[in-house]
């Protein structure tokens, strides 16, 4: 299928919108009417057609605009992309994985031709046609991870495995929900999850780490995570908090449907073959409340979920000020009818 890429912005005038088709494929993260942390991981296998699970590396109508936004972030702050020296093999693993998936699932837009180590990569939406030697970084205009993640939606962390732990040793992070690669680089799994409330106490991270240490080649896994963002801004980083933090005070009952966005991360984890590292893809999807309530099931369920949240999670996700405004505004979409199980629209 040929995707029509939108011309839009994630900053300043915020012209980002979802098409009707894209609204219905949104990965709504709540499979029931309440929410609590859990080790909500499932095999990352192909799912429903016309959902974000149709392909394992999803490319959508926001691709070109997201890549332009990433280039702006990197220009202002090159430390959003970092790799420790021992991660070079994992960088090549990442390049191979992303090129192979994009070329296989979107042949109209991407083509990969291999002749031994001599590879040719064509990216039509971004107007790129490069020939390079796999394994030789000097043949690419950027190091391999930066090269390919300037051409792939989502944030990417490459996690090294040693001493029975996972280490954040490389990444491209420009569309994050208030965390910083520059701060976390070199940390282990328990350290970088330190700030999350409640989940440590119920043993979520111990179990998740054990599970991930045994992640197998050929069996990627995924989970959904969520928060909410005022305005469709991809770069909600601690580094730029002064730019987006104050946005929270601009929400009113009149503009909440337009300004408030549900922000969902489709996180997928892949064992990389050559390096034995794990690629952690954090793909961010945004949808305004106005767009979201066009799906009746989601309009009913979201206010119920927001009402049921424990105060620690409300605080951690930065929802304290605007939760009541959202619940009031969403009330008219909840007629009290039961909702069907699962996340997909009825």
């Amino acid at each position, binding site marked *: 299928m040929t995707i029509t890429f939108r011309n839009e912005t994630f900053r300043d005038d915020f012209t980002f919108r979802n098409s009707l088709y894209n609204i219905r494929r949104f990965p709504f993260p709540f499979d029931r009417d309440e929410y609590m942390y859990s080790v909500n991981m499932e095999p990352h296998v192909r799912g429903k057609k016309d959902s974000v699970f149709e392909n394992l590396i999803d490319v959508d109508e926001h691709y070109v605009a997201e890549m332009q936004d990433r280039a702006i972030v990197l220009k202002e702050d090159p430390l959003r992309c970092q790799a420790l020296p021992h991660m070079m093999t994992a960088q090549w693993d990442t390049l191979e994985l992303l090129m192979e998936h994009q070329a296989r699932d979107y042949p109209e837009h991407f083509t990969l031709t291999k002749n031994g180590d001599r590879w040719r990569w064509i990216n039509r939406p971004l107007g790129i046609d490069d020939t390079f030697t796999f394994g030789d970084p000097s043949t690419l205009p950027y190091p391999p991870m930066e090269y390919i993640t300037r051409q792939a939606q989502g944030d990417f962390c490459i996690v090294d*495995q*040693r001493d029975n732990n996972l280490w954040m040793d490389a990444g491209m992070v420009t569309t994050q929900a208030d965390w910083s690669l520059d701060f976390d680089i070199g940390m282990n799994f328990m350290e970088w999850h330190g700030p999350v409330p409640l989940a440590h106490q119920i043993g979520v991270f111990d179990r998740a780490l054990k599970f991930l240490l045994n992640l*197998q*080649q050929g*069996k990627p896994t995924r989970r959904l995570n969520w928060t909410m963002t005022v305005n469709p801004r991809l770069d909600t980083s601690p580094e730029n908090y002064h730019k987006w933090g104050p946005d929270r005070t601009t929400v009113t009952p009149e503009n909440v449907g337009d300004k408030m966005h549900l922000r969902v991360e489709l996180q997928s984890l892949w064992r990389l073959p*050559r390096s*034995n590292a794990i690629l952690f893809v954090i793909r961010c999807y945004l949808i305004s409340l106005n767009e979201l309530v066009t799906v009746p099931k989601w309009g009913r369920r979201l206010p119920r979920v927001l009402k049921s949240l424990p105060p620690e999670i409300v605080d951690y996700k930065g929802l304290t000020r605007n939760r009541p405004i959202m619940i009031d505004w969403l009330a008219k979409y909840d007629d009290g009818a039961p909702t069907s199980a699962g996340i997909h629209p009825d």
Partner: protein
Amino acid sequence: MSLNTDMPVRVADVTQVTDLVKRFRFERLDGHPMPFFSGGAHVVVSMNDNGLLRRNPYSLMSNPDDNSAYEISVLRVPNSRGGSIFMHKQVKPGDQLIVSQPVNLFAPDHRGRKHILFAGGIGITPFIAMMEQFSRDNIAFELHYAIRSRAHGAYWQQLLDRYGPRRIKIYVDEEKTTIPVAEIADNQPLGTHLYVCGPAGMIDGVLMTALKAGWPKENLHSERFLAPPAGLPFQVFLEKSNIHMTVGEHQSILEAAEAHGCDAPYLCRGGACGQCETAVSSCDGTLEHNDIYLSDEEKASGKKIMICVSRFKGQQLVLQL
């Protein structure tokens, strides 16, 4: 329920390496390339021995950058449970087997400035793939390889030819030469990592010597696959699957469960990875923990068992499986 990513393969070649070691080359039946892997990885090979399912882990020893085939080497162990005997006696070129995706529980630390490898006997196999990687990436390494005799030792001549005597040191029992572990451990630059694979006594000796010399334990790596030890047959009840079964003399609980159609999780089948950890509901007898995964406290608590290698003595064992 686990997603099945096992690969049916054809035995492309069988080579007699020494009187007790054979090398097997596997190609995929569907003609696709093998997945790439990292040095130190192993696969689990499934064999159909006259209706009896055998699954044994073997280190991959082919070049990790060569995705045309996988190679393993198998030592014939006379008193083994039968896997190595089956591979030696039954498996011929053209036969079909099932091979799992590669799993690496013995990966090199990529931060290492230098890597020192200690191999004993068939423990050489994971290092053959590792050395390919080190040499490709221009990373410093040296191998200290102990063999019984030059006739029995596998691959030592090829390795000497390939990497030269400065990087490959051979020690021969028959010639009364032994690895000077203390001397080697005593004199290494900061950032060196040490790896050992071989008989249990050798692994313990090398690790102990290095710790005594002041090495941080994060820089010490070992791979020991434990073959499930034999023992008396015993009764197990799998609660969730509602299966009563007898675990035979030369069978593990995991193998017995599989024979009864229970899809239990596993990875290494050698007591090391933790994947097959199973909760014990009740135990009218004594658990014989043979794994290296559970802590001493966990073993003492009697609430968990690694079903790939551990056994039981007593009336009845009930597992949450």
